[in-house]
C-alpha cells in the first residue's frame, strides 16, 4: 500500500495546503507542524510557479511572497528536510510541470523519495501528457495524484483506473479559492470514479468551512483546504501557526467519523 493510501485508512482525511517559503522557510516548517498537530492527515506543499494557471488570487499572492524571499526547488527541499525533523505527517507537492521538468524528473523524484514526499499534484499536466514522468515517479514510489474535474466526463475511467495515492476531485470549475456554494453534483462524480477504482478520493477547490467538511466528508474520503489556510498565513505573517492549528482542529472535528469495522 502506498504511503498516501494509509492516510485514508479507517478515517476521513483532512488535507491542508500551504505555499512553501510563504512568508519564509522557518514559518513554513512551523505552519506544517501546526497543521499536523491540529489533525491534518496530509499536507500539500505548493512550489511557486511564475504562471500558476490553476490558482486563484490568494495563492498567487502567496507565490509572490515566496518569490520575494528567493524560493527555489532546492530551498524547498531544505524546508522539507527541516519539516521531517519535526513531524512524520505525510507530504505531497503541488506544482506545475515545468518546475519538475527543469529540475529533472529523475533527480526531483529521487529527492522526494529520500525526504519522504509521497506524491505530486501537477494541475497543468493533462493525463494524456504524463507518459514521460509516470515511470520515473513510480520508480521512486512517488504517486502522481490525478485531478478529476466536473468536465472530465468520459475521460474519468482513463484518468483514475491506474491511479495511486488518492484522486484529487476538483469541486467546481475554475481556479482555487474559497466558494460559498459548490454546485457540482459531487455525489454522482464520486460514484462515477468509484466504478473504476478503489483509490481514495479527496475533494478540493472552494472548501473552507467546517460545514463543508462535514458535508463533503460524507461523500468523499477526504477534503482539501488551500486558499482558506493560505489566507490565514497572509493575515498572520510569521506567526500563523496557532491559527492554523486551531483551524485544522475545527475542520478535522467536523469530518464524519468512520465506525470501526
Amino acid at each position, binding site marked *: 500500500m502506498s504511503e498516501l493510501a494509509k492516510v485514508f485508512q479507517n478515517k476521513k482525511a483532512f488535507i491542508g495546503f500551504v505555499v512553501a517559503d510563504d512568508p519564509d522557510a522557518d514559518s513554513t516548517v512551523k505552519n506544517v507542524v501546526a497543521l499536523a498537530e491540529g489533525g491534518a492527515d496530509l499536507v500539500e506543499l505548493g512550489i511557486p*510557479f*511564475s*504562471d500558476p*494557471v*490553476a490558482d486563484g*488570487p490568494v495563492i*498567487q499572492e502567496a507565490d509572490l511572497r515566496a518569490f520575494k524571499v528567493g524560493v*527555489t*526547488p532546492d530551498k524547498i527541499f531544505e524546508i522539507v528536510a527541516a519539516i521531517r525533523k519535526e513531524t512524520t505527517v505525510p507530504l505531497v507537492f503541488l506544482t506545475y*510541470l*515545468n*518546475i*519538475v*521538468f*527543469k*529540475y529533472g524528473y529523475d533527480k526531483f523524484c529521487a529527492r522526494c523519495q529520500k525526504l519522504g514526499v509521497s506524491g505530486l499534484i501537477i494541475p*497543468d499536466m*493533462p493525463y494524456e*501528457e504524463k507518459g514521460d514522468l509516470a515511470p520515473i515517479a513510480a520508480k521512486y514510489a512517488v504517486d502522481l495524484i490525478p485531478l478529476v*474535474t466536473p*468536465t472530465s466526463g468520459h475521460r474519468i475511467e482513463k484518468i483514475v483506473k491506474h491511479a495511486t495515492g488518492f484522486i484529487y476531485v476538483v469541486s*467546481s*470549475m*475554475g*481556479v482555487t479559492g474559497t466558494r460559498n456554494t459548490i454546485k457540482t453534483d459531487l455525489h454522482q462524480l464520486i460514484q462515477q470514479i468509484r466504478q473504476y477504482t478503489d483509490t481514495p478520493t479527496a475533494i478540493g477547490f472552494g472548501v473552507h468551512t467546517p460545514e463543508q467538511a462535514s458535508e463533503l466528508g460524507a461523500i468523499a474520503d477526504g477534503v482539501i483546504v488551500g486558499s482558506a489556510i493560505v489566507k490565514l498565513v497572509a493575515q498572520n505573517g510569521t506567526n500563523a501557526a496557532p491559527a492554523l492549528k486551531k483551524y485544522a482542529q475545527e475542520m478535522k472535528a467536523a469530518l464524519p467519523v468512520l465506525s470501526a469495522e
Partner: protein
Amino acid sequence: MRQPINEAKNDPKFQKELTDLLNNYANRPSLLYHAKRMSDDLGGAQIYFKREDLNHTGAHKINNVIGQALLAKRLGKTRLIAETGAGQHGVATATIAALFGMSCEIYMGKMDTDRQKLNVYRMELLGAKVHSVTSGSMVLKDAINAAMQEWASRVDDTFYVIGSAVGPHPFPEMVRDFQSVISREARAQILKETGKLPDAIVACVGGGSNAIGSFAEFINDPSVQLIGCEAAGRGVDTDQTAATLERGSTGIFHGMKSVFLQDKFGQIDKVYSISAGLDYPGVGPEHAALNASGRAQYVGITDDEAVDAFEYIAKTEGIIAAIESSHAVAYVEKMAPKMRKDQVIICTLSGRGDKDVASIAKYRGVDINE
C-alpha cells in the same frame, strides 16, 4: 477536441463554408504584391509581400478565427473567448462573434490595453467585453493564462479561440492548418507570376501563427529558405527581449513542450518587445522543431530595427505595416541586398499598422495629441 477537428477537416460541407467565408467575407485570396520600388532601392532580390494586412480586420488572424468559430458552431457553443496581444486576434474574434451572433469576451494584458486603446474600443464596438488582465507581467502570456482559466471554469457553452500556434495538442496543428491558406495561395501566386519557387520566405514570429502558415506549403521544398523573425526588444543579449529561439531553452508550459524564455528553475521570464503581438515567452512547437532540425532559421530583430522598417516600407511602398510585420520587413532589408536580382523573397505582411501609429510617434518623441 481531436475528433471534432478531424471530422470537420474531412467534411466537405465544413470546408465549403470555410472557403466561402474566407473569400466572401475576409477578402481572400490576399494579394501577392511585387514591391518594385523597395526591390530596386535595396538593389538585390525581388521582394513580394503577401498582403495579409488587406484581409478584413487587417491581419492574418481572421483566417484562423473563422475556422475555429465554425468549429465552435459545429460543437454547439454559443460563446467565444480569446486572448489577444496587440488586439488583432481579439478584433478578429469579436468580428466573427458578431457575424455569428455569439457572445464574446476578450482577455488582454493591462500593458496591452494601455498601448492598444484603439483596438480595445474596436472590440467593444463589435460587442465584445474586454477584460484587462492585471496578473503577472500583464502581457500576452498572462492574457492566455486568464483565458485558459476562464475556459476551465466554463467549458459547457464556451469555445476558446486560441490566437497563435501554441497550447496543447491539437491546437498548434489546428491553427497551422487554418493559417496554411497563406502559403497555399502564395505558392500558387508566385508560380503563376514567376514560374518558379521563391528563394526565401520571411515572416515574424511571436507564438508563430502567421509564420507557420507562411511556411507550411514550402516546408517540403528544400530550395526555399524559411526565416522567422523574432522580437529582440532592446537586444537579444539584454533581459528585455522576446527572442525565444535565440535565448530560450526547452520547457513545458501552456500545455506544450517547446522552447521558452525561462530561468534555470523553470520560472517563465518576463518578456519585452515594442510589439504587443510578439512578446510571448514561448514559440509554437513546430517552430521549435523547425529550428532544431535546421529547416528554418530564426533571427532576432530589435525595436529600433523594426521601427526603422515600419517607416521605410511606409515611405518606399506606401504601406503602413503592423509593427509585428515590420520585424520581418527589417530582415528583408538586411538580406535582399546580398541576393541576386533574379532571386525572390516572399515576406508576409501579417497585419496593417494603423494600430501602431500612436506608439511609433511616441517612440520617436512626437506628440500627436492635440
